[in-house]
């Protein structure tokens, strides 16, 4: 007994799905295509290995090696800071916090995850950058480290949620048997839960890394935006902040405009490679 309503609904669902998937594909292809146009003029190798970015000079110099490094550097600093903290926090949550308070803490962590990037940038600008200048006597507080710390706070919630999911399952599965042998929680967490959650941790790291690399506003406000070889205490530039700063002036269709898309495309490619790497890492861990 198929009613007209049934048929219309099924039709709508199909049409909307088709539309969504086409739209998304279109966006991805569009970014690829706009970047590709650029690579026809400037070889991709030159684009990613050259160090000078000067789109208004004559001749224009459009290479983003330093900027790619800057993007990776800031994100790596963020992960290096956030990962151990995130893992530790997730371990504590799965082993020591009961269901109800846990929901509340996770809610709080969700709230941190939801704080907009501009607010982080604002705090970074008002607190972190100034703190670096005052406390350490840096010439200027804008730095890879400032961006890294800020991003670390921003990606921490993602790391905790992802790790906690895996760790909680492991803890629930194995703690009764282990505790029944008189073994302490700490020991269970250390010898079973932590080593067995490697896959979850890897996934969390990649997810967080992706978030960090794509972050725009917060980073832009605290890294100084100088397209130079990044140093931990020096300024740098990242791809998203480059795009945000310059997309306003790059005329649609100009080389500069295509170069910005190309930069975005490079960012996506890095992410893609990371995810593929993660897939293989997970698979090899499965064996």
């Amino acid at each position: 007994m198929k009613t007209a309503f049934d048929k219309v609904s099924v039709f709508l669902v199909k049409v909307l799905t088709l539309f969504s998937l086409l739209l998304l594909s279109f966006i991805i292809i569009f970014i690829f295509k706009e970047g590709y146009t650029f690579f026809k003029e400037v070889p991709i190798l030159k684009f990613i290995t050259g160090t000078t970015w000067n789109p208004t000079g004559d001749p224009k110099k459009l290479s983003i090696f330093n900027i790619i490094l800057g993007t990776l550097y800031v994100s790596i600093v963020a992960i290096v800071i956030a990962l151990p903290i995130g893992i530790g926090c997730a371990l504590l949550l799965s082993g020591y916090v009961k269901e109800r308070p846990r929901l509340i803490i996770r809610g709080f962590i969700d709230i941190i995850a939801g704080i907009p990037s501009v607010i982080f940038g604002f705090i970074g600008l008002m607190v972190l950058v100034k703190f670096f200048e005052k406390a350490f006597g840096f010439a200027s507080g804008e730095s890879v480290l400032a961006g890294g710390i800020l991003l670390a706070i921003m990606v921490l919630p993602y790391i905790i949620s992802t790790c906690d999911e895996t760790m909680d399952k492991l803890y629930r599965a194995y703690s009764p048997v282990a505790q029944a042998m008189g073994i302490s929680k700490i020991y269970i967490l250390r010898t079973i839960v932590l080593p067995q959650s490697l896959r979850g941790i890897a996934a969390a790291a990649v997810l967080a890394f992706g978030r960090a690399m794509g972050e725009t506003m917060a980073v832009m406000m605290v890294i100084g935006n100088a397209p130079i070889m990044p140093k931990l205490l020096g300024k740098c530039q990242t791809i998203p902040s480059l795009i945000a700063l310059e997309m306003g002036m790059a005329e649609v269709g100009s080389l500069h405009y295509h170069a910005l898309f190309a930069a975005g495309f490079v960012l996506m490619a890095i992410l893609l490679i990371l995810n593929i790497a993660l897939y293989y890492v997970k698979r090899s861990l499965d064996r």
Partner: protein
Amino acid sequence: MNVLELKDFRAYYGSKRVINNLNMAIKKNKITAIIGPSGCGKSTLLMSLNTMLEEAEGRTEGQILFNGKDVHSISKEEVRRRIGIVFQKPTPFPFSIYKNLTYAPIYYGVKDKKRLDGIVVEKLKISGLYEEVKDEIHGSALKLSGGQQQRLCIARALTVEPDVLLLDEPCSALDVKNTANIEKMLMNLVQDYTIVIVTHNLSQAKRISDYTAFMLDGELIEYDETHRIFTSPQDNRTKEYIEGIYG
């Protein structure tokens, strides 16, 4: 001799009482079976005996004596080490067979490689697993069959040299052959250990246990030597249950 003794024992989840005023003594080097319909509190009772109920957010009142001492006067770890428990679902750790069996000994400070090897071989032999797995002792324990996993879990529980072994429906997920294996193993073990087994397979209780306790709705209805429970139960409810609809 009584290894475990329950006095006026009650158990709760939150404010819900699931075991009510239970008195019972468990004899050394005997197999005691606990039977009763689903939800009557068998698992709860078992978990109370080695204080694991706390971890399941439960709470107890009354006394549990272990070799005459209140279990709460002994450290939790000590109680749990000396009273092992094996659950219905086999849960080997996601390690190798070897590491499963050395996990607890290492925790308790055994470092000598030879001694560890010795423990592994001994416990595998006791559980009748040795011949079956001796070539893949360093292979993942998760690759074993359900029955082998369950025997491994029993072997693992024995690595800490407990006095008492509690088993909660250890065979309910296993087939006939594996069940027979485990029953054989338990009957061997009882020379050195005291065994308490929860089962809903009455013929199993009949086959292997020395004493049987019948519980209903959180109360101990009858507790006696197995053959008496099965041949001449004193309480009508026991009789009904044993002749019960289930064959």
